[in-house]
């Protein structure tokens, strides 16, 4: 009963699909953002699991996961700024109401 690479990859796949489902079913812009965070975390788990099982001692996977965390923080900051602007202009964060750029 040893835990192998498969176990971690399957957990990450589950987390990825939950994030995808969240992104597709939420109307709230912040809710979509939370789904994106789940997807990014699933990708980072994959990086770290491959690092540990396929090349232990080399830290490439860990460094890539570090960059994922940095970019997730940057993305969250910008997206929250956009959501606040959306709320100021439309008084809602329902993404279906943000249609003023439609042709």
């Amino acid at each position, binding site marked *: 009963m040893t*835990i192998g690479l498969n176990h*971690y990859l399957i957990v990450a796949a589950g987390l990825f699909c939950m994030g995808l489902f*969240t992104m597709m079913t939420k109307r709230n812009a912040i809710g979509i953002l939370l789904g994106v*965070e789940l997807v990014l975390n699933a990708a980072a*788990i994959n990086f770290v699991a491959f690092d540990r099982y396929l090349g232990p001692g080399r830290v490439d996977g860990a460094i890539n996961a570090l960059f994922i965390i940095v970019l997730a923080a940057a993305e969250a900051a910008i997206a929250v700024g956009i959501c606040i602007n959306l709320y100021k202009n439309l008084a809602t964060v329902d993404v279906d109401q943000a249609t003023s750029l439609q042709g």
Partner: protein
Amino acid sequence: MGLIGSAASGDVTMPVDERTGVMNAAASGGWLEAVLFYTVAGMTLVSGLGVCVSRNIVRMAVWLFVALGSVSMMYFLLAANFLGAIQLIVYAGGTLVLLIFGVMLTSKSPWARFDVGKIELLAAAVVSGVLLGCLGAVITATRWHGVEGMVPGSSVADIGRRLLTEYLVPFEVAGVVLMVVMVGAAHLARQEK
């Protein structure tokens, strides 16, 4: 045996593979790792499911907090100690607080909810379910030539050394990106005069 791996690396009774320096944990009770893994994996998946099915944005944020904490425990299990700490400090402590600020600034009431149609729900469930099935089939069908047993934990010194040598350009670009994001976010969220 990631979590125990770094602590037990000085243990002379463990059989060590001379070529790779990897310890063979088969004799030392991999059950502890299995119990820890299934606990953490269960927490991760249950909290991820909580984010999926909650209709209230505040509940979603709380479930996401649990999910991020479980993912950091998963990093500890994978012997990435530094990354687990960073996940807790930056993600659970910084990014999630930012998102909760966003929730508070943009919701009319804590119980506001947006309902979605049945067709959208069905389509999303089918797409994610099919994707999960395909990923699971691919993962279980592939023969990974991975290293079993214990590995030494990745050291912070290694990460720092490689960040400042091979990964220097991405590291600097990430710094520039963070600065641009800081200016951009302040500009986006400023008060109109």
